[in-house]
């Protein structure tokens, strides 16, 4: 909550508009601008509140990352009341993320949710009525939001951080005991043993980091399942989306034997499509196996494309498919818009209200752009898994973990040099603070408790 930190975040919601804005606020905003921004033509010193065209570069490689428009708003005339830099990027979310990463390397830290607004508030950039509105908002939200910081974490990570904290607290307790009690009172744990524990913990953090490095979405991609009754055109659609013929397409139902998984890129986000085998031919052994695999895949899919045949009446099988996926993120797509329509939107509304069907023709490639846009919007829909904060949150976690590992390694070095325990203790304490930031816990009392539970203190 230290207000002097310079903070940065992607300010535009994902999936809306062609450009994305990165906002940087704080004392270092101008310095970061000079470090990363190369103006298109020499414009002299940057003027306040002027739009400049140019390139964001990576200072390490000196290579351009994206063509941008930037503006500098010096305090107090900015949204937050602090020096503010806004970078309008053209690239997709991957580019935005890359630029944000550079901004953070240049000295900013990722903003906490709502932090820009809070700063604006603190710097008197908001009037009383707005303040009251914010208070109301908090009142409504805090009931379920008090534990927001914690629930944002996936259970796994939270548990892992918890275990890490425990091991660091134990290490710190060893060091602190050696400091706060004389050799008459206790037998200190040898440095060699502490050193081993530090190495273990560092290794554990590195492991978490390796699985948690980038936003999950952008690393693993989005899994989209195409499902529908046999011969509805799933493979044709897949081929259209992938741009070339991959699956075998015939009009004989159930001819797609293996499920097919192929990735395309929508706005920088890798999207994997999973095509199901027909549901009908469950008797064939070969296909049974195929089907088993498909269902496993289908279970883990992020988005389900329910494909219907617009040239036929709604069949029992269609309803089965719809019912089987109710409650999930569904894109309702009606194929064969090139043939005379026998399916009515009204009918579908009754079964799946709130979901607007998208009519396409896989055969002629109609509606493909709209479908991709739909997938993207669904992916970015503000929901626990794909919340616009989650990438940011991940980045924050990642940075905290990196810092934590770095401090731990430093403590390890100090111990190897056989220096006095108060020095590695400072590193470990700060390392613990980094972990605490992720789970929102402070440390002090924990350590004394650990000391007294583990060691018999004389006197």
């Amino acid at each position, binding site marked *: *909550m230290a207000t002097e930190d310079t903070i940065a975040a992607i300010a535009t919601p994902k999936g809306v508009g062609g450009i994305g804005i990165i906002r940087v606020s704080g004392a270092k905003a101008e310095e970061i601008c000079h470090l990363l921004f190369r103006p298109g033509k020499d414009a002299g010193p940057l003027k306040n509140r002027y739009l400049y065209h140019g390139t964001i570069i990576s200072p390490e490689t000196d290579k351009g990352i994206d063509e941008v428009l930037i503006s500098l708003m010096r305090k107090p005339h900015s949204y937050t009341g602090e020096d503010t830099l806004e970078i309008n990027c053209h690239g997709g979310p991957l580019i935005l993320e890359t630029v944000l990463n550079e901004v953070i390397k240049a000295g900013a830290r990722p903003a906490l949710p709502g932090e820009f607004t*809070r700063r604006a508030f603190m710097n008197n950039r908001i009037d009383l009525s707005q303040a009251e509105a914010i208070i109301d908002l*908090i*009142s409504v939200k805090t009931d379920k939001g*008090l534990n927001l910081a914690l629930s944002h974490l996936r259970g796994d990570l939270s548990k892992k951080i918890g275990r890490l904290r425990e091991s660091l607290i134990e290490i710190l307790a060893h060091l602190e005991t050696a400091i706060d009690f004389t050799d008459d009172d206790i037998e200190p744990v040898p440095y060699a043993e502490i050193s081993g524990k530090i190495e273990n913990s560092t290794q554990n953090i590195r492991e978490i980091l390796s699985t948690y490095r980038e936003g999950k979405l952008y690393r693993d991609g989005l899994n989209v399942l195409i499902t529908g009754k046999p011969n509805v055109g799933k493979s044709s659609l897949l081929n259209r989306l992938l741009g070339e013929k991959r699956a075998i397409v015939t009009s004989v139902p159930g001819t797609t034997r293996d499920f097919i998984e192929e990735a395309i890129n929508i706005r920088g986000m890798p999207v994997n499509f999973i095509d199901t085998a027909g549901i009908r031919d469950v008797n064939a052994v070969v296909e049974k196996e195929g089907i088993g695999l498909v269902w496993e895949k289908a279970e883990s899919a992020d988005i389900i494309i329910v494909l219907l045949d617009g040239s036929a009446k709604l069949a029992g099988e269609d309803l089965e498919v719809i019912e089987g996926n109710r409650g999930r993120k569904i894109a309702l797509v009606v194929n064969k818009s090139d043939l005379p329509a026998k399916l009515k939107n009204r009918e579908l509304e009754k079964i799946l209200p709130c979901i607007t069907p998208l009519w396409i023709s896989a055969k002629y490639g109609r509606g493909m752009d709209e479908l991709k846009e739909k997938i993207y919007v669904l992916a970015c829909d503000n929901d626990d898994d794909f919340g616009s904060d989650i990438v940011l949150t991940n980045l924050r976690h990642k940075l905290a973990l990196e810092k934590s590992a770095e401090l731990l390694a430093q403590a390890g070095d100090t111990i190897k040099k056989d220096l006095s325990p*108060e020095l590695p203790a400072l590193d470990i304490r700060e390392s613990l603070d980094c972990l605490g930031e992720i789970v*929102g816990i402070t440390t002090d009392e924990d350590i004394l408790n650990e000391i007294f539970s583990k060691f018999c*203190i004389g006197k």
Partner: protein
Amino acid sequence: MSKEFDVIIVGAGHAGCEAALAAARMGCSALLFNINLDSVALMSCNPAIGGLAKSQLVKEVDALGGEMGKIADRAACHFRLLNRSKGPAVQSTRVQCDKQLYRLAMKAVIERERNLYIRQGLVENVIIEGGKVSGVVDNTGFFYAGKMVIITAGTFLNGLIHVGESQHPAGRAGEIASISLAENLKELGFEVGRLKTGTPPRLRASTIDFSVLERQDSDPDPQPISFTTQKLRKERLPSYFSATTEKTHWLIRDNITKSPLYSGAITGVSAKHCPSLEDKVMRFPDKEKHPVVLEYEGLDTEEVYAKGLGNSLPLELQEYLVHSVSGLEQTEIMRTAYAVEYDFVHPTQLTQTLETKLIKGLYLAGQINGTSGYEEAAAQGIWAGINAALSVQKREPFILDRSEAYMGVMVDDLITRGVEEPYRMFTSRAEYRLILREDNATIRLTGKGHELGLISHDQYSDLQEKMNRIDAGIERLKEKKIYPVPGTNERLTEMKTASIKNPVTLYHLLKRPELSYDDLKALEGWEEIPDRFVKRQIEVEAKYEGYIKRQEESVRKFKTQEGKKIPRDIDYDSVPGLSNILKKKMCTIIPTSIGQAQRIPGMTQAALTALLITIKKMELERAQAGKSEKSLQSQKNTNGAVK
């Protein structure tokens, strides 16, 4: 005594004496009570002052003009620098004192103080008028008028001594407890808890077989605690090490039900950092032995303090117990070990000055606030004494924060986090301990002591002169370079340190852990510094430089949080999203800053944000009210002009 005192202090222990002296020396008329004037400044438990994290406190008291360090130096007969092999930030001086010399020396100091009245008496009631203290009444019904009252009652409030199944009211062995005052505090509305402490047996030296024990002598280069001490007494007393045996342990295990700690007779919470022998044996069954340290209680006495043998077992068992320890097979017990339970006032009811929130002018210091230790008591005593005097003189309160002193850490812990078991100082409680060292206590605080009028001008300017020499010494080391030439590298090898490949400054070289300032003697550019203090500061500065910078950075962040004040009139009901538990805590603790609020146990980030926003809203409302008032005013003025 018909006169009204500025400050009345109830209890002349380690807290009370410092409180009384500070108030009197700041120009207040002060009255100091003790139940028995022969037990002024008594060292009730161990015969030592200082120790890890505690010497930091004593040296801070010293830098503010307090007495504890000076008296300890005068009575000291055994010196040790603890953590000598570790860094200077965690080193601490510990001195063993002659208890009688200590007590008499302190008594002599308070007796010589012109503004200080001393009275033997048992105070029973604090008198309140209009929510404010007006004086105290003793057990004869006599009223003493006072503007401020500081209670430093130690373990005397409802004190109850346990030895086995026997129990009797007492503040300390052989001294009457303070029952009425304890009741009075409860009646006044204070939330009170119960703690337990204890003391080991005192043994007769002539019956101890020292020949089988490991002996530890005083350090050969004794360093005084007080910055002002010029010379130390010559007599030294050794300490001896022994340990409990298997027999000790089974004696305890077989008879554990006879311990009031385990029979349920004691309900007071004991300190985990200072467990009784029963606790050690029961909680750590795998340990084969526990250390026993034997320390003389004075130069002219046979009494020996048996550190490590503290217990509350019945007398016959205590005899067996002592005899089961090697070297003590024939030893006579002179004073039995005992446990004492006493009332304490939950310190979250205090403000940063240690004044109670409930009653203006009433201050509490020492064990009554749930702490343990002479040093913790003295630090609170001087803190309360200074603030009571400042309040009488209508001056700004004196508060040190967590980045300025261990005292500040302790007071903040007490009033913000409260106490569940006796609170002892640890270096690990001080997050900025690399800059809060015993060696720089005087640099940190002497200036403040001078401002308060507790440090003489001479002492202060003497320190400033030393500080100039420290700066000059560092500058010089930074200028002097040595070069990787054969002669220099040979000398470095002789000094048992790595040779150099590039030119380095002497300052840089001094960063090496194995080198002291005087080790650099053989190198060109070195100059002798006779003042040990100056030399030490230069060394510490060089060795800790990077870490000190890191801590200073954290302190800067800490200070901004402390600077965000919470208005006194904030209505916690209007803060959205505060849980009821948190709301209740906030209403008791009444944090003065966002920083302090952050340290309240159970505080969440969401609650803090809500708090910040509510404060901002209050400010905006106030600004708007001010504006409309102004415009109303100007309207009136224009109206007037029109008329």
